[in-house]
Each structure stands twice: as structure tokens, then as C-alpha cells.
């Protein structure tokens, strides 16, 4: 791998203090993500995959270990606009048009007005929503709304895109389509992508690196470097290589999770 990792976690711990006593959400998480990687985090609920992503985004503060993003602390990285974050729900403001929603982070970050429109056009084109800028969110389908929220995360040119189960609420047909779109987007922009999912085919189809996690306490049980080529048509999912990786992911999930 080339150069310094973009995201590096060393012995990362996170314990939540709850009314039922401390809950260990992450234990001894070690991971390196390099520039241009597409990393999926997969595991059952409660395995800490979302929590880890939130740590990278400085939405949670680890209680132990070290986490750097672009060589900085997550907090500094956020102020340096290191990443865009996509949540499970599109979270578009109903009182703003699609273009207005995408402009929102630009307004908050203080981009000049003249530049805002150009950037909106550019990212709308990236997610193939050109011409929808003047529509209101309710006029778009769920899949289109989620694409708009990805465009919003891309608008300020962060190098890292963090996605927390972005397609979890969509049906499988839309999901397949958006998976293809995300791969195209990734190829065109060269972003580093962190992607949380609970779908094995989604993780294997998208990723260059699959991080398998298990719960109680949340920890990494396996890291799989995908041998699949960068160019991935949808029917690659029927190839023996694909099925082999999927099998290894399933094994990793089973090993880390006692179904008692």
C-alpha cells in the first residue's frame, strides 16, 4: 500500500456509560485505511461498525487508543473538511429544494455564492440527478433522495466519504442500482470510502477491503482484502471468486457471533 494511511486506528476502545452500567462498544480495534480504499464494515447489530464510523467522524469520542484521520485527530479533521457523511436516512430538509439542500453545507462552511451553484451542478451530475435541483425532496423517490444526500456529502470536496448503511432502507432493486452508481462514483472521484452495511453481497460487491466485526464487545474478527478487479459488472456476483469471498465473510461472521 502506498504512503501513510488516511485513517489509522490503534488499540481503539470505546466504553459507553449507560444506566445499566458500562457497555464496551469497541475493544482493541486496529485498522489502516489507505487513500482510494473502499472499506466495508460488516457485522450484526451491536458490533460497533456504526460506532467506529462515528468515531472517525468525531461524533463519538473514543475512551482509549489512538485514531487519526489524515494524520490529525478526528476533531481537527472535521474542521479541515476531511470527510462527508451519509446517514441511513437522506435527511434532506423538506423546506429546501434539492439544490438548496446540497448548498446547505457550502453555506455553513462559507463558500462564496458564485462558487456554490457551480459545485451543486457538478455533484448533481456526479449522482446523475442533473435537472432535479429545483425539485423538493418529497417529489423524489427514496433512492433519488439518498443520491441527493450523497451529492450533499460530496459538495465540499472532502477526500473521505463515510456512509452509514446508506441503502439499508431501500428495496433490493434500487439498492443494486445504487451500488453500481456508487462504484462508478468511486472510480470517477478516487475518494476513500468507509461503508457500513449488514448485507454480505453489498459488502463483497463494493469493497477493496472488508472488515468483519462481531458484538459484545465490538471488535474486528477478520479483514479481507478483495482480489476482485476494480471494474465490476453486476453479474460478477455469480463468479466463483465473489462467492468465495462471500463465504469467507459469512464464516467470519459466524465465528465471531455465538448464537446462544
Amino acid at each position, binding site marked *: 500500500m502506498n504512503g501513510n494511511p488516511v485513517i489509522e486506528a490503534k488499540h481503539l476502545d470505546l466504553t459507553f456509560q449507560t444506566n445499566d452500567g458500562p457497555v464496551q462498544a469497541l475493544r482493541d480495534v486496529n485498522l489502516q485505511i489507505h487513500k482510494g480504499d473502499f472499506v466495508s464494515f460488516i457485522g450484526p447489530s451491536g458490533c460497533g461498525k456504526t460506532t467506529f464510523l462515528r468515531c472517525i467522524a468525531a461524533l463519538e469520542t473514543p475512551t482509549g487508543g489512538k485514531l487519526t484521520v489524515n494524520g490529525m485527530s478526528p476533531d481537527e479533521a472535521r*474542521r479541515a473538511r476531511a470527510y462527508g*457523511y451519509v446517514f441511513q436516512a437522506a435527511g434532506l430538509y423538506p*423546506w429546501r429544494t434539492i439544490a438548496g439542500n446540497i448548498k*446547505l453545507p457550502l453555506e*455553513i*462552511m462559507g463558500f462564496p455564492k458564485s462558487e456554490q451553484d457551480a459545485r451543486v451542478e457538478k455533484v448533481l451530475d456526479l449522482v446523475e440527478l442533473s435537472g432535479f435541483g429545483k425539485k423538493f425532496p418529497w417529489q423524489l423517490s427514496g433512492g433519488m433522495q439518498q443520491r441527493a444526500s450523497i451529492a450533499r456529502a460530496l459538495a465540499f470536496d472532502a477526500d473521505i466519504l463515510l456512509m452509514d448503511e446508506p441503502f439499508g432502507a431501500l428495496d433490493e432493486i434500487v439498492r443494486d442500482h445504487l451500488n453500481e452508481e456508487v462504484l462508478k462514483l468511486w472510480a470517477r472521484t478516487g475518494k476513500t470510502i468507509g461503508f457500513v452495511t449488514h448485507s454480505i453481497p453489498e459488502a463483497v460487491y463494493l469493497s477493496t477491503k472488508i472488515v468483519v466485526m462481531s458484538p459484545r464487545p465490538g471488535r474486528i474478527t477478520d479483514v479481507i482484502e478483495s482480489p476482485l478487479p476494480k471494474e465490476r459488472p453486476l453479474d460478477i456476483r455469480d463468479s466463483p471468486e465473489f462467492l468465495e469471498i462471500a463465504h469467507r465473510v459469512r464464516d467470519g461472521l459466524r465465528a465471531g457471533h455465538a448464537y446462544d
Partner: protein
Amino acid sequence: MTRVIFPVLVVVAAIMAFWYAACIPMNIKFALQTAERQGAVISPEGVQARRDMSAFVLAARNPGQWAQTWEQAKPRLPAPHQIVQELWKTTVDVKPTSKRSLVFHGWVTLSATLAGFAIGSVGGILLAVGIVHSRAMDMSVMPWAIASQTIPILAIAPMIIVVLASFGVQGLMPKAIISAYLSFFPVVVGMVKGLRSPSAMDMDLVRTWSATRAQTFWKLRLPASVPYLFASLKIGVAASLVGTIVGELPAGGGQGLGFRLLAGSYYGQTVQIWAALLATAVLAAGLVALIGVLERGTLKRMGLSR
């Protein structure tokens, strides 16, 4: 449209029928007394005989006198057409500047209501902003706001007027303050809820952009609260009107719809009371409808209504 109009007409007709019917037992005793004095044959004869009898029985035994129950000058319950006549007389037949004009009294009440509503709404919004942004304010102000509404306004209104009069504040202001006292509360409650309506995810999202508190307020919290604000304003404006009228009872100075209600009850002018009541209701409905129009326009412009 006809499918809507028909049920509405049926309800109005039912209310009118009930009202006219209710006038009969309410006013029958005085109607019989008057008719007997004028020589009509009433069953049973004599005021003494009828004194302890049920009004319903008397009405049933003297159907010939029903019409009289709808035409008295000072009935216990005036009939609808009497109220309409009184309304016509006191709005169209007299100059709007006359002290006998309901337009004049309505304007006095309306101006104090609008002033109180403005004070109450702005104050309510400011309080809500403080409560949402400061935990200390949330803990310290909210209980007092709730406590303030548990005190009967009728009890506190004269005190406010007396205290303010001792500082030389008279006229519109004391009424406006009582009106604001009633209208700020729904605005506080609605706005606090509205400003807190963005989800945890919405708040996380603006955090990932390192938005300041002020940016979060202007770009997320405030626009998200607008539908809640209008719902509160509708309740607030109706409460404002009630507050003003209560304020006019002890401090009317001979003006306002509240004073008309009071004067009517002093002199047994029930028709005047009901006319003032109806004028109040029309005023309240107009104010609520006005806010409804503003609401529809604003939400449409914001893209919040489809």
C-alpha cells in the same frame, strides 16, 4: 362542493331549530304574564298558579303564546333573529365612531388584542429560544410559565390593572398585557417543541459540517419550527382575545366588547350581551382564519405543503 355544503347547512339548521325551541320554555313565563295582562286566556290562570309550574308544562299547555317568546325586549334567551337585528342596528345603523356602535367597541378590543398578541408571541418565541439553548433556563423558566397559566385570569386581571394604574399606565396597555399573559404560553410550548423537532440525525449532520450554534438555529431549528409556530399562534390569538375581554371587564373605561358584555348584564340587556358575544366570536374566527391564511401562504412558499 355540494357534498360539503349540505352537511354544513344541516348542522346550522339543527342549531337554529334547537335555539328557537329552547327560547320557548326559557321565556314562556314572562310571555304568559304579558299576554294575560293584555286579556288573553292563559291556562292555568293567574301568576300565582303558574309560579311553581315547570316551564315545559306551561309551554305545552299554551302553544298559542309560543310566538311571544321570540319577541320580548328583555328575554332570558333572545332568539337568533333578535340578535341579528341588534347586530344590524349597532353596526350598520349607527356611525362607527359612535359609542353605541359595535364596530367602535370591536375596534377597541381588536387593537388591544393585536398589541397583546404581538407582545405575547414575540415574548413566547424569545423564551422558547432561550429554553432550547440553555438548560438553566429550561429548568428555571418553564415551571413558572406553567404555573402562570394555572392562576385564574379573572382573579389576576384586576390586580394587574390596579398595579399598572398606580404607575400611570392606563388605556390599551393594561389590557394588552393581560392579553399577552394568556397568549405567550401556547407560543412557548409550541416553539420549544418546534425548535427541538430536528432529529438526532439532523443534529449529527450539521455537526459533521462544524456548524455553529447560530447556524444550526437559523438554518435548521428555526425553519423546522415554523409549522409548530403557526399551530401555536392560532391558539395564542384566540387566548389573546379572551385576555383582552377579561381585561375590559374591570378596566373597560366604557369601551370594548368586554365592557358591552358587562353593561348588558348590569341592565338586563340580554340581546345586547348576545350581540356582543356573537361579535366576539366573529372577531376570534376572523383572527384565527387570518393566521390560517398566513400559515398556508408561508408553508407553501417554504415547500412544506403539497
